[in-house]
């Protein structure tokens, strides 16, 4: 297969942008990515994109130009962006084209996501009795994890404190003000042990990435970042996922572990080789558990990692350097691509105030979502 690079990256600031549709935010991101790569829309040979709640991506050709390119709409829940990137990468790697676009955008209403039982193959009573909320799942998962592995509430708070601190340094973040640990810990409870500052909020935003073959990147003299591997995996038997009225007594694997192992194997490196990581932080507990599920530490070691600040910008393994979902919010279709965007920024050394020191060479991103799927991408410089 042909080696593939990201040669252009664009982002529409995350958060709330009244008066601008999700798709228009997508167009904004595409134009920024084109400018970054020094390309015109007519140079793009194929495109993959989507949103969860903001409509079809292929309509963007109305704004960008009717070049006749194949434009595949991707609709894959929380992995929409990751699947678009995997598809664009595969199109280039297979030799189908030399330059491809991956774009994800979204615009969600305020408040918690409101799922309909029927859409998820679940009985109505599950929603009627108040048990079908994504926030509950995350609280139930971290509650058990804390009991089994000795994670403290204070460490949950430190995750959020770090996210908001990193967000202050990031121009695409939504939450740009620091929040101190006491405020986070004493804020109103959403689902015990998670307070309101420990959860990300549905939001808006868009990300576009331009993918090219290594040969094309060289011809263009691009400031490229290599895609070493991408893996998307759905849940194995016995896993514990969002929207589960019951789970098996035979406990099994996790989609994140599967995607992570596949990505490491394809890249030929291990967690000890990663210089910077973006891990799904739907809430504070998710970042903690995903550190272990992605192989960066053993269960329970996170308590010490946070006490020592090992995941800070200047730590041994900086995690969620742009503030993650906690500071950026979660526009589903764009969220996974934001992580890859941030890794591209970091590997190019363009992070400004939030730049990880020491010229990072490898970067890892991990997105997780309902109904139990994960996508991992490893980039190299």
């Amino acid at each position: 297969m042909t080696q593939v690079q990201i040669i252009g990256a664009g982002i529409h600031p995350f958060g709330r942008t009244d008066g601008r549709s999700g798709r228009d935010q997508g167009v904004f991101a595409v134009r920024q990515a084109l400018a970054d790569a020094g390309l015109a829309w007519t140079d793009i040979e194929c495109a993959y994109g989507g949103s969860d709640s903001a409509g079809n991506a292929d309509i963007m050709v109305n704004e960008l130009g009717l070049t006749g390119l194949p434009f595949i709409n991707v609709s894959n829940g929380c992995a929409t962006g990751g699947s678009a990137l995997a598809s664009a990468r595969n199109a280039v790697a297979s030799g189908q084209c030399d330059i491809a676009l991956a774009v994800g955008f979204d615009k969600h209403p305020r408040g918690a996501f409101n799922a309909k039982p029927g859409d998820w193959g679940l009985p109505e009573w599950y929603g009627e009795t108040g048990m079908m909320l994504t926030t509950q799942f995350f609280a139930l998962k971290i509650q058990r994890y804390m009991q089994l592995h000795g994670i403290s509430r204070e460490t949950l708070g430190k995750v959020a404190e770090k996210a908001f601190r990193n967000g202050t340094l990031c121009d695409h973040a939504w939450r740009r003000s620091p929040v101190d640990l006491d405020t986070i810990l004493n804020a109103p409870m959403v689902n015990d042990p998670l307070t309101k500052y420990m959860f990300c909020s549905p939001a808006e935003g868009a990300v576009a990435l331009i993918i090219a073959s290594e040969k094309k990147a060289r011809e263009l003299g691009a400031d490229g970042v290599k895609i070493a591997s991408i893996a998307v995996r759905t849940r194995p038997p016995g896993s514990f996922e969002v929207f589960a009225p019951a789970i098996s007594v035979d406990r099994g694997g996790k989609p994140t572990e599967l995607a992570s192992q596949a990505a490491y194997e394809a890249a030929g490196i291990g967690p000890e080789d990663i210089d910077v990581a973006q891990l799904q932080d739907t809430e504070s507990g998710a970042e903690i558990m995903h550190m272990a599920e992605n192989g960066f530490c053993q269960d329970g070691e996170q308590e010490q990692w946070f006490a020592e600040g090992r995941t800070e910008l200047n730590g041994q393994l900086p995690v969620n350097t742009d503030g993650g979902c906690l500071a950026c919010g979660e526009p589903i279709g764009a969220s996974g691509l934001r992580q890859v965007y941030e890794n591209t920024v970091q590997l190019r050394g363009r992070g400004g105030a939030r730049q990880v020191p020491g010229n990072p060479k490898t970067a890892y991103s991990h997105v997780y979502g309902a109904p139990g799927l994960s996508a991992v991408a490893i980039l190299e410089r």
Partner: protein
Amino acid sequence: MSGVLPVAEGLWTDEAQPRLIGGRHGQTGEIVFPMPEGDAAQHYDPVPLSRTGTLWSWTSQDFRPKSPPYAGPEAFVPFLLGYVELPGQVIVETRIEGANLAELTLGMPMELVLTEFAPGRTTFAFRPCA
């Protein structure tokens, strides 16, 4: 509980000490909850589940879920929920009654009760064993 209706038919047995009804897979023997509906049901036989189990995890619901689908009263009272492991059978998600957050611990014994979660409608819940 006269005058009140179950939130759904077939969730628990109609007996003095009701039990949840799961489905046992005809070939693998794996137990699921609730009993599957539609085409999937052909692979499962209904099976009454244990009335007692142990607490697997828990949380609180501190804000009113959106309606629909939530059918509880407008005047919201926070409630507890969690997963209870029915030994050798299945781990079920459930409301938790008769306990404070601070009392809950991993592995504590729990037993099934019915609760009126909305005026005139019952659902199942688990509470700490007496």
